[in-house]
C-alpha cells in the first residue's frame, strides 16, 4: 500500500515559470529550458510511490535536485506543479492550516546539519514538535524521553547540542523526528555530515530501529554505498529528473542508462571491499556476567541458532550454539567456559572480501571480525553474497 504518491512534481526557480513548465511537458531537458527561458529547473516532473514501511532512497549528486525534491514533499519549498498525496490528501494544494496539521502529525524531518536549536537542551529540542502541537507538558516530556531512550540518549537530556558529538546530535535529530510518531520520516542527507565510522553505526542503527518501528522513510543521499545499504528501493536523480527507480539489485544489474552505469562503476571501483565494510554489529553474551540461560533467552529473542561470547572488555571467547546452551542448562552447568566452542573462524578488519568468501563457504557459523582479540563485528553468509552480487553486477556491465 502506498503511503505517499508523488505525481508530476516540478519546481522551477526564476522567471518565465509558465513557459518553462510547458517546455518540460513537451519533454525538454533542464539545459534546454535554461537556454530557452533562463529559468532553472529544480525538479522535473518527478513521479513515484512510497510504500508503507519501506525505506525509499533518493540518490543523486549535488545539484541533481534531490534536496529540492524532499522539500517539495513537505512543502518547505512550494511546488510549481504536481501533487504529493498522503492518505488521500494532496499536500501541494492544501491550505496553510491543513499543511501545518499534516506536518505535525504525519511528516517529520531529519536535517543534514541536524537543525537542532542551540538554545534548547536535548530534551527541549526533542519535545519541540509536540510542544507546537500543544500537547500537555507531562505527556510530551514523557514521549520525548521515550524517543531519546530509543536512540540511546536517555542520559543526556539536560545537555545542550554543542556539548554532544556529531553522531549524538543526529540521534537527537532522529529522536525529535520520532517523538511525533509520524507516518513518514524525511531524512535529508541525514548521515552525510558524520565521519565514516559513525555514519556506518548510524546506518546500522537506523536499520535496527526500522525493524522495530516500521516507519515509512524517504532518505536522501549522494552516497551509493549508503543507498544500497539502506534502501528497499532507490530512485536515482540527475538534472532534476528521476532516471531510474528500482531495488538495489535492479539498479546494479540493470543500470537504466549510461549515467546510472557510470555512477555504479565509479563508486565500486573506488572501493575494494574488506571485512570491515561488510561486517555487522554482533549480538553477544558477556561471559563475566551471563550464564547459559541468558544466552539461550537472547538467542530465542533474536532468532539465532548461536551467539558469540565475549568478556567484559569485549575480548572474543568463543561461540555458543543453542544446543550446547540447552544441554548446559539440563546438566546445571553455570560456567560458559565449559560449553562454548573456542575454535571459531576469525579474520582481521582488513581481510579482503574475496578471501572471506572462501572461509565462509566452509563455516557453519558466522565469521568473527577481530582487532587485537577484541570482537568488532560478525560476517554472515548473506552479507558476503550481497556484496559479491554488487561486484559481479558491475563486472557484467563494464
Amino acid at each position, binding site marked *: 500500500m502506498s503511503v505517499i504518491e508523488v505525481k508530476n512534481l516540478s519546481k522551477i526557480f526564476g522567471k518565465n515559470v509558465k513557459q518553462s513548465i510547458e517546455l518540460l511537458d513537451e519533454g525538454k531537458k533542464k539545459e534546454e529550458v535554461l537556454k530557452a527561458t533562463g529559468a532553472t529547473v529544480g525538479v522535473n516532473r518527478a513521479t513515484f510511490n512510497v510504500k508503507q514501511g519501506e525505506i525509499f532512497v533518493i540518490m543523486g549528486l549535488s545539484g541533481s535536485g534531490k534536496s529540492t525534491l524532499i522539500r517539495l514533499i513537505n512543502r518547505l519549498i512550494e511546488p510549481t506543479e504536481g501533487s504529493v498525496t498522503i492518505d488521500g490528501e494532496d499536500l501541494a494544494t492544501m491550505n496553510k492550516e491543513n499543511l501545518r496539521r499534516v506536518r*505535525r502529525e504525519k511528516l517529520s524531518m531529519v536535517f543534514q546539519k541536524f537543525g537542532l536549536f542551540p538554545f534548547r537542551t536535548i530534551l527541549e529540542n526533542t519535545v519541540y514538535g509536540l510542544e507546537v502541537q500543544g500537547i500537555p507538558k507531562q505527556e510530551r516530556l514523557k514521549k520525548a524521553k521515550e524517543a531519546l531512550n530509543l536512540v540511546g540518549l536517555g542520559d543526556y537530556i539536560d545537555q545542550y547540542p554543542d556539548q554532544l558529538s556529531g553522531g549524538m546530535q543526529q540521534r537527537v535529530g532522529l529522536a525529535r523526528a520520532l517523538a511525533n510518531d509520524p507516518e513518514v520520516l524525511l531524512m535529508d542527507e541525514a548521515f552525510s555530515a558524520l565521519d565514516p565510522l559513525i555514519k556506518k553505526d548510524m546506518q546500522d542503527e537506523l536499520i535496527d530501529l526500522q525493524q522495530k518501528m516500521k516507519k515509512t522513510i524517504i532518505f536522501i543521499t549522494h552516497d551509493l554505498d549508503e543507498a544500497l545499504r539502506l534502501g528497499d528501493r532507490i530512485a536515482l536523480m540527475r538534472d532534476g529528473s528521476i532516471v531510474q527507480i528500482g531495488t538495489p539489485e535492479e539498479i546494479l544489474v540493470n543500470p537504466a542508462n549510461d549515467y546510472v552505469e557510470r555512477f555504479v562503476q565509479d563508486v565500486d571501483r573506488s572501493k575494494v571491499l574488506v571485512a570491515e565494510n561488510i561486517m555487522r554489529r554482533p549480538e553477544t553474551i558477556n561471559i563475566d556476567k551471563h550464564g547459559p540461560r541468558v544466552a539461550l533467552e537472547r538467542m530465542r529473542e533474536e532468532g539465532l541458532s548461536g551467539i558469540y561470547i565475549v568478556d567484559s572488555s569485549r575480548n572474543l571467547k568463543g561461540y555458543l550454539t543453542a544446543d550446547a546452551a540447552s544441554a548446559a542448562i539440563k546438566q546445571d552447568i553455570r560456567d560458559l567456559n565449559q560449553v562454548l566452542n573456542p575454535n571459531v573462524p576469525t579474520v582481521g578488519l582488513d581481510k579482503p572480501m574475496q578471501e572471506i568468501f572462501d572461509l565462509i563457504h566452509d563455516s557453519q557459523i558466522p565469521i568473527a571480525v577481530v582487532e587485537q582479540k577484541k570482537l568488532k563485528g560478525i560476517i554472515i553468509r548473506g552479507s558476503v553474497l550481497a556484496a559479491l552480487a554488487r561486484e559481479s553486477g558491475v563486472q557484467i556491465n563494464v
Partner: protein
Amino acid sequence: MGCRSMFDQIPQFPISDWIDRAVNWITSTFSFIFNPIRNEFGDFMSWVADLLEQIPAIVIILIVVVGAFFVTGRKFGLATFSLIGLLFVYNQGLWSELIDTFTLVLIASLLSIIIGIPVGILMSKSRIVETIMLPILDLMQTMPAFVYLIPAVAFFSIGMVPGVFASLIFATPPTVRFTNLAIRQVSTEMIEAAEAFGSTGFQRLFKVELPMAKTTIMAGINQTVMLSLSMVVIASMIGAPGLGRPVLSALQRAQAGPGFVAGLSIVILAIIMDRFTQNIYKK
C-alpha cells in the same frame, strides 16, 4: 548663464514655512493628546526620580557594586570602577543630577525597546515595511539631534517629557535595525526545522527566531542605551534635569572646571551602563 538665470527665476519653495505650519497644526490639534502625556507622564517620571532620590546614595552605590560584581561573572574590575566612580560623583555634589539622568535614560531606553523590537520584527517579516522604514531610520539617525528639540518643545513644553521624546527619536533606530537584521540572519536550517514540525508564525517567532536573535538584539539595545544617554545631555537645553545642566551652564559661563567634572560624571554613568548591558547580553 542662461541655465543659471532660469534656476534663479524659480522662487524659493517655502518648505520651512510648511513645516512650521504643520508643527503648529499638530500642536494645536493634538494638544488633547500631548497635554495629558506631558502632565501624567511627567508626573510619573518625577515620581520615579523622587523615589530613587529617597534611597540613600550609599545603598544605591552598594547595589550597583554588588550587581557589577555578579553581572561580570564575579570579577572585581567593574565593581571597583563603579564604587570609585559613583563615590566621586557623590563627592562632587552631583548625585541628584545623576539620578535624574539615570531616570531619563532608563525610561527613554525602555520606551525605545518597547517600540523598537516590534517595529524591527515587522521589518524582518515584510519587505514593504523594510523598504519604508530604512530611509526613515536613516533620517532619524543622521538629522542633527538638536533639531528634534524644537518640535519636542512645541508638543510637550519643557522638562523631562520632551527630553524623552527627543531621545526616543534619536535612540530607537539601533534596536529596530539590529532586531530586523538579527531575525533575517537566522539560518535557513533553523527556519526549516521550525516549519517542518508545523510551527505557526508566532511559534516560529517566539520559539525559534527571537531566541536565536537574542544576542544581536541585545547589542542593539546596548547601542540604544548609549545613544539615549548622549541625547539626554543635549536635552538639558530644553530644561531636562540631570547632568547635562551643569555642563550647559559651565559652557555658558566659560567655566572649564565645573564643566569637566560634570562631563566626567556622565562618562562614569555611561561606562557603568554600557558594561552592564554588554555583560547581560553576553550571557
